[in-house]
């Protein structure tokens, strides 16, 4: 399957919502606006010639310097033709809502919960959106760039010795 074929078809259906496409990397990448992400994924999954029927991966990403800092990256895989595609979408920190894809892929359930846990991205329509890996009473989203990695309760570490 050719990259141009996919992008053309996507353009035909979601003309203005396809913000960017990049064919130079290892996998064809398209960036779409957040409201249509569910439709794009459904289109990729269910259209006859697309058939991206396997959600390999779903994860968040945070670019603190951009206008739309929080992102979600989907990796889809067409198993019969061995073609992968990467779909991205970005949202703001103040209103990080994205439609869920759990109705298309059961596997998205925990992936989205993990993304919520790490980045605080809210997946609309998710059946059970709560923290998965961290403790429930945690009040920040640890993978956002502004939060530190280190355990704040340690006193035996002197920052001066670690070049920080």
């Amino acid at each position, binding site marked *: 399957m050719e990259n141009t074929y996919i992008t053309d078809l996507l353009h035909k259906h979601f003309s203005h919502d396809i913000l960017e496409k990049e064919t130079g990397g*290892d996998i064809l990448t398209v960036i779409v606006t957040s409201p249509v992400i569910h439709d794009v994924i459904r289109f990729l999954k269910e259209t006859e010639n697309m058939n991206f029927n396997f959600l390999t991966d779903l994860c968040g990403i945070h670019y603190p310097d951009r206008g739309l800092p929080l992102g979600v*990256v989907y990796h889809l895989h067409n198993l019969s033709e061995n073609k992968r595609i990467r779909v991205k979408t970005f949202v703001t920190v103040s209103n990080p809502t994205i439609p869920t894809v759990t109705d298309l892929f059961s596997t998205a359930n925990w992936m989205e919960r993990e993304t919520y846990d790490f980045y605080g991205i809210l997946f609309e329509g998710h059946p059970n959106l709560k923290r998965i890996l961290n403790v429930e009473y945690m009040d920040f989203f*640890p993978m956002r760039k502004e939060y530190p990695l280190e355990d704040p309760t340690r006193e035996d570490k002197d920052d001066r010795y670690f070049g920080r």
Partner: protein
Amino acid sequence: MTDILEDKQYTTLNLGPTHPATHGIFQNVLTLDGEQIIDAEQTIGYIHRAFEKIAERRPYYQITPLTDRLNYCSSPINNIGWHLTVEKLLGIKTTKRIDYMRIILMELARITDHLVCNSVIGVDSGALTGFIYVFQEREKVYEIYEEVSGARLTTNMGRIGGFERDFTPKAVQKIRAFIDHLPKVLVEFEKLLLRNRIFMDRTIGVGPISGERALNYGFTGPNLRAAGVDYDVRVMTPYSSYDDFEFVIPVGTQGDTYDRFCVRQQELWESVKLVRNALENLPEGNFHVDAPQFYLPPKEAVYSKMESLIWHFKIVMGEIDVPVGEVFHSVEGGNGELGFYLVSDGGRTPFRLHFRRPGFIYYQAYPEMIKGGVLSDAILTMSSMNVIAGELDA
């Protein structure tokens, strides 16, 4: 599947987080009607270690030790998968010798992973003998690791662009001895379980999942193949010269515990074949690529030569330019497609690194697989899925 009825009394049972039969730490809250499971809810994250956050703070070669601790039953696969990802980003091409050496180590790792999983299925169905027997073999693989990398479990094997040292003659000899002896053990192990009436009664039809549901749940690896889908990353997108070899991908039909056991067992045989083939055809050549800006110079040279010392310092301090870009690379891990999604902004550390952990992804199907079954079958189903806590919680 049974629905929850209002006027009936159900038992709630806490399976975990420190239950002896859960090999690893996760909690299942089961709703039981007598012995039948009506509902299950999982809690995970009991050993969440924030790998992805750490990875954003560490230079590339320091991330290898982290990958060890993902699926610690098959650490070399994780290490090498990570190295392959970075090599993809840097555009380094490895030689055949490196590839073959990697295949040998990755297949040995697969052998240990499957040995542990299958013997534990035996233990959970009441046959401790096989476990103790095959663990002897696992020790031998650990001795090989020690010979190649110096560590037993958390191997931190190889470097970006090859290996830290070549196979020593002793290592080659140990690998040979191992693959010559393992078939005998496997035959005996299979005799013990494969056609054993009790074992078959305990496992056939237990915890089944259809191929379609398995795909929808993102299953990969032996668990998916047991459900009848022949997806294997080694064949679909060959990496590290896997396409030079011929091997069979075993598939099951029912997707139940017995099929998962058989698929893993068959893969053990294929792995033995692969190791033997790779070892026999091991090409001559260098064990690392010529990429001085990423490959750490040998220690002796660092201590005695100025040039090497400078390079060592530059690499360790991250003074090296890394291309900006993003790559996704996946390898066939012990229990499925182990993916690395790496975003680089040119800095000394990854901007973002996400691990696609197969265990995390397929464990969410567990309630669906055990509903309607009985409690003791749930334990068997769990051990046959081979959920590794380190990989589950990252």
